[in-house]
């Protein structure tokens, strides 16, 4: 979709620079003239929102590090020092802590948007896989960040999660010792997690650059899933059209973000994390942060440690194979009557798993987790099977046609374009 560059250097300095380092051309081509499908809805603003969140996390994080002490006996009080004595320290810390949650809110919307509109399908496989890599890095960064305040949930969460690696045969115990830097979660663990927590966001940033690069090679998907056929008719330039829409989406997102930061700053945290880490007292319930709960439920659903770890890992890794699991050629589920229902069922299953992850692993909750785990993986099996026989609805001929049809509001227009539609693609 990246066509011929439309950048024309206007001043002598720009021409001079353009012949040496065409950085203004790059910016112009990717953020100004870059063509975006004209029918994108607000779900497409979440990419921009995620970039904003990443930058916000990095900026607040860098300032927090100036006041934080990564030591087992001082970390908890240094966080409180930030909350009490650092100018606007409470704001920085609440922004950073709630920012992690909002980052996941946005990334889940972004992922489910991709799932619904088939954004993972050819030619966007690499783009999608890079997204899964970012998701994994985010999970690692969030987990290690949660350890840093060195509260009870930090400590015990770290103990539970690092212990998972001990399920691996032969090397498991060695890996756990290596992660801990000793024989239990202690100061060395805190120090390495702090170091990695500072490193990971920059790795995420690097993969985000690749993600955006891949996006700009293949172009954006859109709600119809029909590729851009005529750049003139089907797309609009990124600036001002997408820019203003993305900024509007971002500001609305900031309102939600601010609601939590200023009015409910501890809503998404655990009260236990305001108790300093104590290796001698286990909290009654060790619960990870909300964004890990669906995976935690899958982990606990399997009555075998190694099996649980494999199931949890597979639940994430399976996403990377989605481009080849989904056999349908039609991208958007708006045109896939059966798959669309599967999608909504899958969303309910994920929320259900999240709820179960927060419940104690006993009695009916375990059985429910097992059923929901089967349903989670069942979605991918079903997607494979359904794609083989599903008869999709007639796709619009082009993005422009779909927009014009809905603009006229009549089904007549849609009928007219449908007759001219390309032969029904194999479902």
């Amino acid at each position, binding site marked *: 979709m990246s066509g011929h560059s439309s950048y024309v250097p206007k001043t002598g300095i720009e021409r001079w620079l353009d012949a040496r380092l065409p950085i203004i051309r790059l910016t112009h081509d990717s953020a100004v003239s870059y063509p975006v499908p004209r029918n994108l809805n607000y779900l497409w603003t979440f990419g921009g929102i995620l970039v904003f969140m990443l930058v916000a996390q990095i900026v607040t994080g860098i300032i927090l590090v100036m006041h934080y002490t990564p030591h087992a006996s001082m970390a908890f009080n240094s966080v409180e020092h930030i909350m009490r004595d650092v100018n606007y320290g409470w704001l920085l810390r609440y922004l950073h802590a709630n920012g992690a949650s909002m980052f996941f809110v946005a990334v889940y919307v972004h992922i489910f948007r991709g799932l619904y509109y088939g954004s993972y399908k050819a030619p966007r496989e690499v783009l999608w896989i890079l997204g899964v890599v970012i998701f994994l890095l985010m999970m690692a960064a969030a987990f290690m960040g949660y350890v840093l305040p060195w509260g009870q949930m930090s400590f015990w969460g770290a103990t*539970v999660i690092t212990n998972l690696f001990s399920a691996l045969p032969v090397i498991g115990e060695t890996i756990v010792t290596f992660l801990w830097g000793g024989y239990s979660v202690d100061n060395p663990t805190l120090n390495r997690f702090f170091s990695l927590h500072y490193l990971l966001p920059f790795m995420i940033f690097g993969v985000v650059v690749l993600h955006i690069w891949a996006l700009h090679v293949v172009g954006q998907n859109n709600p119809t899933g029909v590729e851009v056929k005529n750049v003139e008719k089907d797309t*609009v330039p990124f600036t001002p059209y997408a820019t203003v*829409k993305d900024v509007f989406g971002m500001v609305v997102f900031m309102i939600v973000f601010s609601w939590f930061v*200023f009015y409910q*700053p501890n809503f998404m945290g655990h009260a236990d994390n305001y108790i300093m880490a104590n290796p001698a007292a*286990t909290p009654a319930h060790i619960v990870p942060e909300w964004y890990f709960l669906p995976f935690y439920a899958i982990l606990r659903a399997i009555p075998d440690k190694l099996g649980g770890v494999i199931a949890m890992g597979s639940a994430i890794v399976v996403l990377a194979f989605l481009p080849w699991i989904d056999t349908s050629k039609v991208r958007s589920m708006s045109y896939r009557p059966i798959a669309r229902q599967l999608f909504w069922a899958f969303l309910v299953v994920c929320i259900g798993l999240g709820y179960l992850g927060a419940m104690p692993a*006993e009695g009916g909750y375990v059985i429910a987790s097992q059923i929901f785990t089967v349903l989670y993986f069942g979605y991918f099996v079903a997607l494979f099977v359904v794609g083989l026989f599903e008869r999709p609805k007639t796709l619009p001929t082009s993005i422009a046609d779909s*927009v014009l049809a809905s603009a006229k509001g009549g089904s007549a227009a849609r009928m007219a374009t449908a007759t001219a539609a390309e032969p029904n693609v194999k479902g």
Partner: protein
Amino acid sequence: MTKTSFRLALTGLAAGLSLAAMQPAAQAAEAGPKPPALSWSFAGPFGKFDRAQLQRGFKVYKEVCASCHGANLVRFRNLSQPGGPEFTPGQVAALAATYQIKDGPNDQGEMFERPGRAADAFPSPFPNEQAARAAQGGAYPPDFSVLAKARTYTRGFPTFIFDIFTQYQEQGPDYIHALLMGYEEPPAGVTLLPGQNYNKYMPGHLIAMPKPISDGQVEYPKGPDGKSPVPETVDQYSRDVAAFMVWMAEPHLEARKRLGMQVMIFLVIFAGLLYYTKKKVWSRMPDGSPAH
């Protein structure tokens, strides 16, 4: 892995130190009745502390709680800063001076005691955790600095979703108030060991702290009519000390909510302007066709 086997492993770590397990866990399995939700002056988007209440709460803390519970993150100077009890700096300096603070070493290498200054933290009632446990029959009175944020109770589904919109987040003070009010005789069948007390709201109902306060124990400042404007009852003491503990845990609460309102107003107006800008931009497509 099974949760059970894993929990066993974790419990193993704690096995040798069962005393520590007496510390009340915030979300224990056996939750008692839900603490009643009180009306707090600092709740909601315009919430502010009631200065008189914080001052009374401080008096309760100082005269009753502080004999066992420290607040080592709170400094005397905090008592005069905006958004708190707002004692005058003079009152704070006088108050601090009534404490003896260990300092040093001096030029001779000796530790020495000096009168407290506004910059000092509240001195802890015990030199260390072991001393506290030894004095308290094995139980460790938790530090008060962030305790109001470290205590909660399960809200359950769907209440926790409504809480996002109602901004309910006063589980801590509600629980603390309920706990102080919740001492009662153990029901038939419950035998208390020495050092245990029965409390309706304590998770598991067994609490090491005996009923700490009774009606009339703390004398409140008198109003013009020679009587305290609020009743000198356990209920009132509990409300006041819980409010004071919220301030200790969240000393910038007022500034946070005030800034929050400014940010919200700005963002809502900005979003409105952007919405119309977006509409304007999208009303004309580059090729002149309608947008939607």
